[in-house]
């Protein structure tokens, strides 16, 4: 990827990320987040990890953010004027962000050797075959455990969402 393209995309990602914080309306914040996620996916693709990039687009931008949109709608969140906030909250918040910025700077000044060593990557780096191979051989147990965990989460969500017992009211399927 040429440097100017990287800088352009990185700037877009940062603008989107800033928008998440600065926008007043939740839907606008969410759209900024979608923009950031899509741009990061494009960065992945440009850096040779096309599979990861497209998966990011499918899972985060295409599915999880849509669910966020649903939650915003169903809770009927409106844009709210910023709360004045407690002094203590502001103090803790600035401490936290200062720590994060310090970490980032440290990372830039003293990068870990794994990044600076210009290691040659394998030919099939980032390809779907390589990804599948590591998922289904090296990390098989972790992968399966995660999927079981997610399945449990889904079942739990369905069980919680089911408010009425059999014979209770409510349209079947829940017409929105």
């Amino acid at each position, binding site marked *: 990827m040429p440097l100017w393209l990287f800088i352009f995309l990185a700037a877009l990602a940062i603008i989107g990320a800033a928008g998440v914080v600065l926008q007043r309306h939740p839907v606008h914040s969410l*759209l900024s987040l979608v923009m950031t996620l899509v741009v990061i996916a494009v960065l992945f693709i440009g850096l040779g990890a096309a599979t990861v990039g*497209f998966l990011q687009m499918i899972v985060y*931008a295409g599915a999880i953010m849509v669910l966020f949109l*649903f939650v915003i709608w169903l809770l009927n969140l409106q844009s709210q004027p910023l709360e004045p906030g407690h002094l203590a909250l502001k103090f803790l918040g600035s401490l936290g962000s200062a720590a994060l910025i310090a970490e980032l700077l440290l990372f830039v000044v003293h990068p870990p050797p794994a990044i600076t060593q210009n290691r040659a990557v394998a030919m099939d780096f980032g390809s779907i075959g390589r990804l599948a191979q590591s998922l289904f051989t090296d990390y098989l147990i972790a992968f399966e455990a995660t999927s079981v965990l997610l399945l449990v989460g889904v079942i739990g969500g369905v069980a919680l969402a089911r408010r009425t017992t059999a014979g209770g009211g409510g349209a079947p399927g829940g017409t929105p």
Partner: protein
Amino acid sequence: MLAELIIGAIKAIIVLLMVLNLSAILLWFERKGSALIQDRVGANRAAIVGVGRRLGLPNLGFVNTLMADPLKLFTKEDFVPAGADRFLHALAPFLAMFPVLITFAVVPFGDTLIIGDRSINLQAANLNVAALYILATIGLGVYGVSLGGWASNNRWALLGGIRATAQMISYELAMGLAIVSMVMTYGTLDLQLMCREQGGVWFGFLPRWGIFVQPLAFLLLLTAGMAESKRVPFDLPEGESELIAGYFTEYSGGKQAVFMLVDFAEIVLVSALVTTFFFGGWQFPWLYPDGFHLPGGAFFHLPNLAVAIIQIITFTLKVVAFCWLQILLRWTLPRFRYDQLMRLGWKGLLPLGLLNVAVTACVIVFGGV
């Protein structure tokens, strides 16, 4: 380098124009075809100073659909309701349009065209993870309709947007599973390679098309695709009798024209995907890169250019046939109820898709295919 860029741009423009023109023609066919199905005269107004009639030709209504309609829409007032989110209201039609159009970039419309010493792959973008790309762009298509409904500050529109979102993310699963089973069958995510795999014949007469290997996946993809394009019988998001026009209730003028165009471009997209995955894409039976190998040993040599042209025409005709099928279905079936829609998606198509993937995996592992 420059030549590569120019060739890429030409291919992209050809694909784009083909899709947009086909969408516009479908708009005409929707009217004339529905008139034929319902035994009406149908679109027959606005002849150009009566030229056709004077020559004794039947007026097919091309003019009012392809010229009068766009002119009317684009010169109308572009109305934005009070309290609407003006920016998102303007952005939404384009958010809906963009993912549909860029999806066509990976659909191959022919094999290789050789000009001089340069061989051109007849596909706008040759991506080796094209199947993932399709799922990603289709996933992004949700935002246009949902935000269009929300930004209009209208309850009908919002309900339409919510319905559209729920419907699209529900049917995306079945669509993804159908595509996964095709990826397993061909062992690649590259659509051009998938089309090449579908060349040749079985038993001397049956084309090696995906439909004969994965008939269930074909039904899943077609059904889920029609649900994704929000057409009857899946047109709950814009059900006129309940929601006026659903998510584009508050749209007029050019933006509404864009939403209409998206609808038809999605029909073309579903047709193109079904053709590519299940009907051999650009494969014409018995046509090989060097000419026709007919059963019985007859052989007609054809130059590369002729083969490419036959392939492009074949692909176009297959796509048009599936567009026709979808319009026919749209004018034949009644609309689902919302709970029927959700039940079909989650309890019908999703388990069938999972089963199909499992059976395909078993056949690959134990059948040694």
